């Protein structure tokens, strides 16, 4: 058992034959991920990286039995790609694309309601179950196998956390990059809940950033559900000025509730082990687990 993806997951790549799709699909295959095919409209019937290419997601699913999709489609067409995957019945859709218009994601979120599709991202590094399956753009070698789960809005900060966890003598079960956009498919709370229920995860690293209320929502959920596993938390952007977007489309302080300080306070009140320096994530996790 593991969260979201494992060695049995069958992955299809949307935007398979593009530069990004080709590069990262190759990396995923090298990691041992079962990439079963890809979709590039107009190139159906051809072959790419020794895998079949299809015109539609539905065709790809029917032929290959793929149950997970990863999307490398440019921003203007990414919302459409997500909805196509959902319509084809793909259980898990991981959207890497950065820069999707917000109103497109409003439509996507509504479209996904009532469907059996979970969306991770967009604007995320993807999901990795260490040693089994990588559906994303993260450097696989950083994620040593182990029993710590990671939920994070940020890509490189996820790698940083995984590396620190490994240096502290621990390892990763599944790391979920949920994405840095204002509207994402799987908010912090849902990702944390998955890891809380996973028998192969002992503790969780939860990395957030300024903007929005997802961390507070997750913290309250963790407390209400009895703090079953220890959680180490970090919020990036303690020094970010209000009203300025810090790289990620969602990373902007709009009011008093979405500052780093406010989020850290709620997280602490809910029993999360909050570190103020990003350099202390691994150390803190080791400390907490020793207790």
């Amino acid at each position: 058992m593991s969260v979201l993806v494992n060695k049995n997951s069958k992955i299809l790549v949307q935007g398979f034959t593009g530069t990004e799709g080709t590069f990262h699909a190759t990396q995923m295959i090298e990691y041992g991920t079962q990439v079963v095919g890809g979709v590039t409209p107009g190139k159906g019937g051809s072959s790419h990286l020794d895998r079949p290419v299809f015109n539609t997601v539905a065709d790809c699913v029917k032929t290959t039995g793929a149950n997970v999709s990863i999307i490398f489609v440019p921003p203007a067409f990414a919302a459409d790609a997500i909805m196509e995957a959902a319509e084809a019945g793909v259980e898990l859709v991981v959207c890497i694309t950065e820069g999707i218009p917000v109103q497109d994601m409003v439509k996507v979120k509504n479209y996904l309601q009532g469907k059996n599709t979970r969306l991770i991202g967009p604007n995320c590094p993807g999901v990795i179950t260490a040693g089994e399956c990588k559906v994303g753009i993260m450097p696989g070698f950083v994620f040593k196998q182990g029993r710590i789960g990671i939920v994070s809005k940020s890509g490189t900060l996820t790698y940083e956390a995984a590396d620190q966890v490994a240096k502290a003598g621990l390892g990763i079960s599944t790391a979920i990059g949920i994405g840095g956009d204002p509207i994402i498919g799987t908010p912090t709370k849902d990702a944390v809940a998955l890891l809380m229920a996973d028998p192969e995860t002992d503790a969780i690293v939860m990395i957030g950033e300024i903007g929005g209320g997802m961390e507070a929502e997750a913290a309250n959920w963790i407390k209400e559900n009895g703090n079953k596993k220890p959680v180490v938390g970090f919020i990036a952007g303690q020094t970010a000025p209000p009203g300025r977007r810090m790289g990620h489309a969602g990373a902007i302080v709009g009011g008093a509730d979405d500052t780093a300080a406010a989020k850290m306070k709620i997280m602490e009140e809910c029993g999360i082990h909050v570190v103020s320096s990003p350099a202390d994530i691994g150390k803190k996790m080791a400390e907490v687990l020793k207790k």
Partner: protein
Amino acid sequence: MNLHEYQAKELLKKYNVPVQEGFACSTVQEAEEAYRQIKTETGSKFAVVKAQIHAGGRGKGAVKETGMNGVKVGKSLEDIQEFAKGILGGTLVTIQTGPAGKVVNKILVAQDMYYDGPSERKEFYLSILLDRSKGQNVIMYSTEGGMNIEDVAHDTPEKIYKEWVHPGGGLQGFQARKIAFNLGLSGEAFKNCVKFVTNLYNAYVGLDCAMLEINPLFKASDDKIIAVDCKLSLDDNALMRHPDVAALRDITEEDPTEVEAGKYNLNFVKLDGNVGCMVNGAGLAMATMDMIKLSGGEPANFLDVGGTANAQTVEAGFKIIMKDPNVKAILINIFGGIVRCDRVAAGVIDAYKNLGNINIPIIVRLQGTNAEEAKKLIDESGLKVQSAILLSEAADLVKKAVA
């Protein structure tokens, strides 16, 4: 991206949203001409002069050089001339601009909407924005217009109403009617308000706005419903499908260093601190800023170099950071995944040599793919560059550099 009031009003007119009409003017002569035309069209001698800058609080703000407020009502050609002279080219300081203020390159000479008539004039507030938690657009409105909405929310939260719009169905007629009823309108004004709200919502969606704020939303004494002021910001991600709107960008309103960084595809935000930083990834960049602060420094910038940290991007980053004379040290923090650290290290060494005159400490922290080789390259380069692999080591080096 933010727009000026006059630009936003032009866009709203395309969606049949009634606005306070006016002319954008860059010179006193243009302002005179605008006044004459307005006087002919309206038959009123009153007109308003409004400074066009990307900041609120213009009415209470004052031009540094002349002491004149950023919004003035005049009743003669002489008044308009005086206001145009006093505002154009001056530096307007408002509660939102900070003490440095902003230079006014354009003024809007507009109709006066506060004329007398059969019914009572009223000022409301209305804005449309994204409710992130629901993933839906929300119309926020209040009977308390013309003032700071944050104050209204704080002092009298019961006077703020919210109407969420279904993402599939869009804004419904009953919702627009509810808004008009809640604002206490009846008769012609009610009908005009329903049309106004419906068209405004179409503009919000059609233009891919991030935020559209009308304050005041004005009921004139003849029951017209009009946008007297307008603050419009666009979703940067959607500008690709609105090239005509993207062309309205006014770079004189932006920090020149940020504009230059944009040319190199660097995501840069200028801050006031003394330690510059260059990082790959937005989250790690924010975390690095936080770490600088915890180490006793203050971050001088946010800079995300993205997925490709090569010699060109590093060199451009160096140049941009070093434009700021307050920078006492620079921290480069790269977590190499797909990007190989030894390549980044080579890039740092090349950039350093090309620039030649760097006389502040440079701290390079490279972790991830080929981190050891990268550290060796830096250490053996003979340059005054300090290297680190762990984030905690980098923090210690920053501590020393700012001590």
